[in-house]
């Protein structure tokens, strides 16, 4: 039925709209999501790389300066002078005043013995021989040596810078101990956020600084091995399901590697917030689109259905009036055809009556019969005349006119149409017309149509042996109206249904017997004429329709 068709149309429209609006929506959302991601990630990686390089530069600068200081001292002071511990002390203090990182200073001969020493661990170190130490060998060979961090005799982390001094054929070593805490501080500044880490490893992947999380000093870090990287690098490594960023930067001298570790989760927090917000908006947007589409489509199809109903109703109204007009025409045609023969019969009978008046025919024994027959013929012609004239009036009324109407007359005429039907079903029609009912300016044909419809319904409802009561009166209130009451003693209309009887397409009859439009058309006719139609009913007792027709016409 209509509702199925509209259901499918509704679903089709919703599906199409959602498809075409959600696809770009989605695409946009997903694209933005991933664009955000890549852009942000690359930015973070860039930043980490820069930081790593920055720290590496700081470290290299530090070493450069320290080495430069020592080389300056070694090349500008004579060994004899430096052998003097007092002198050495002065040199040391000068150096320390510019840089607190120098822990001690020592002069060592080519055999590895301390010639002079300035520093906190004098007792322990003065008598030590370094000949077999790695750094001693390396320093004698290369001229400059920076060691890895080690604990050494002092049991604290430090490293040494040793430079070789040459005087003629004498080689000696100027050695300084640097507190590796300085390096630690520089490295620590590469820690990003709460979970970032930074440390230095040597070429054997042994930690030179103490990281925050990634291991212990002098051990291998818990991270992958970066000790042999060449050039600055940033990579993302997945371990245990976590994505970690590593930036690595090799330090040229000493040969260490600076490793920065960053937990992108932390850095990416704003990105995740943005992505989350975007996802929320996307979902909200999708929800809105869906809801909006469904609602709009619903209301559109409801509107369509309503319009279709309206059209069907007005179509039916048109068909009704077309039918009535056709009926009227046919009735008029037939009546006219019959009127001519009737006129002739009437005249012939009249002529016979005239002739019977004459002397010569009066003597006939059957005169009485002749007279009687002619009288009866004339009466029947009269009766037929009434019928045809009524039919003609009915046909004439189908032309839409506004005329002065006597409501009682219209009612009486309507009853004559239905008289036979009522009589056949043993239904009694009683009338109580008000006398002196004022005439009203209205469309008599339409009014008659309404009466016809309601009285017909009453006949159908009441069944065999019922009563139909017609009453007219005048109500002076509200500019005056004619009140027509049509009552029957039928089964009545149940309360639940009473409010619906004027609805279009509402009917209690089977489709062949009723379209459900009769009362709704009657209702709209009366409304258009400026009147009102109401119904009162009690189940088991009967129904009364009350029609109000304004006395002043419908152009108020």
């Amino acid at each position, binding site marked *: 039925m209509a509702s199925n068709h509209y259901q499918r149309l509704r679903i089709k429209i919703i599906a199409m709209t959602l498809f075409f609006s959600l696809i770009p929506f989605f695409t946009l959302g997903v694209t933005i999501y991933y664009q955000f991601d890549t852009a942000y990630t690359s930015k973070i990686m860039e930043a980490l790389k820069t930081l790593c390089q920055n720290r590496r530069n700081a470290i290299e600068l530090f070493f450069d300066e320290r080495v430069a200081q020592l080389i300056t001292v070694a090349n500008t002071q004579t060994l004899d002078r430096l052998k003097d511990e007092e002198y050495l002390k002065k040199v040391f203090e000068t150096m320390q005043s510019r840089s607190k990182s120098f822990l001690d200073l020592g002069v060592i001969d080519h055999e590895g013995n301390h010639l002079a020493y300035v520093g906190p661990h004098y007792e322990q170190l003065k008598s030590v021989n370094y000949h077999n130490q790695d750094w001693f060998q390396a320093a004698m060979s290369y001229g400059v040596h920076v060691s890895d961090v080690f604990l050494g005799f002092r049991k604290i982390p430090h490293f040494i810078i040793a430079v070789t001094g040459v005087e003629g054929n004498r080689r000696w070593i100027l050695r300084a101990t640097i507190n590796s805490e300085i390096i630690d501080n520089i490295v620590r500044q590469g820690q990003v956020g709460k979970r970032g880490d930074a440390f230095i490893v040597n070429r054997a992947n042994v930690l030179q600084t103490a990281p925050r999380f990634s291991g212990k000093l002098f051990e291998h870090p818990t991270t992958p091995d970066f000790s042999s990287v060449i050039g600055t690098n940033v990579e993302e490594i997945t371990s245990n399901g976590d994505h970690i960023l590593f930036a690595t930067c090799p330090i040229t001298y000493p040969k260490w590697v600076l490793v920065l570790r960053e937990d992108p989760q932390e850095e990416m927090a704003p990105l995740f917030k943005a992505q989350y917000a975007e996802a929320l908006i996307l979902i909200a947007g999708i929800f809105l689109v869906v809801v909006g589409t469904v609602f709009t489509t619903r209301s559109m199809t409801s509107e369509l259905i309503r319009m279709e109903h309206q059209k069907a109703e007005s179509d039916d109204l048109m068909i009704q009036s077309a039918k009535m007009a056709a009926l009227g025409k046919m009735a008029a045609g037939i009546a*006219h*055809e019959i*009127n*001519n023969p009737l006129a*002739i019969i*009437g*005249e*012939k009978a009249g002529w016979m009556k005239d002739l019977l008046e004459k002397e010569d025919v009066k003597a006939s024994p059957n005169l009485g019969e002749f007279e009687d027959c002619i009288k009866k013929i004339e009466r029947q012609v009269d009766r037929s005349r009434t019928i045809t004239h009524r039919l003609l009036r009915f046909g004439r009324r189908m032309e839409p006119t506004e005329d002065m109407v006597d409501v009682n007359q219209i009612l009486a005429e309507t009853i004559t149409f239905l008289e036979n039907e009522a009589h056949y079903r043993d239904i009694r029609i009683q009338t109580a017309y008000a006398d002196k009912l004022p005439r009203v300016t209205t469309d008599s044909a339409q009014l008659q149509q309404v009466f016809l419809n309601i009285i017909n319904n009453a006949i159908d409802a009441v069944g065999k042996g019922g009563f139909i009561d017609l009453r007219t009166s005048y109500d002076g209130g509200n500019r005056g109206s004619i009140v027509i009451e049509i009552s029957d003693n039928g089964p009545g209309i149940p309360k639940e249904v009473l409010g619906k009887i004027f609805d279009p397409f509402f009917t209690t009859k089977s489709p062949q017997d009723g379209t459900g439009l009769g009362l709704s058309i009657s209702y709209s006719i009366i409304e258009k004429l400026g009147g009102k139609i109401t119904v009162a009913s009690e189940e088991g007792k009967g129904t009364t329709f009350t029609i109000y027709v304004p006395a002043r016409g419908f152009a108020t």
Partner: protein
Amino acid sequence: MEKFRVLIVDDEVDFVETIVKRLIDRGLEVAGVHSGLEALDLMDTKDFDVVILDVKMPGMDGIETLRAMKKKRPLTEVIMLTGHGSVESGIQGLQLGAYNYVMKPVPLNDLLKQMAQAYERKLIEEERDRQAGNEAVPERV
């Protein structure tokens, strides 16, 4: 009843035949024709007081005939007779000068009353014309 001249125009032959007989029986001078053209031809040579004219006729219909009659003999009264009672032709007829409009079948006595009244009006009109100095002169056809 005064004797006046009547012309019956109707295409129903039986109807014309009977009504002519009955009216003659009642002392009127009556002629009957079966078409508008015949009526107009007859009116060229004879003068009538009242015409009973059927509206629906084949050939020249009642309204056409009425128009021509009123041109030819404006003072002759015409009573329109019809079997179908269309309001428009009634109004049109009256506007063209018909005396009245009657629906078939009509009891003869009712028709006689109408005709007598029509004749009365004709007499009054003729009198008025005479007094105004214009004699009723039939128009040239």
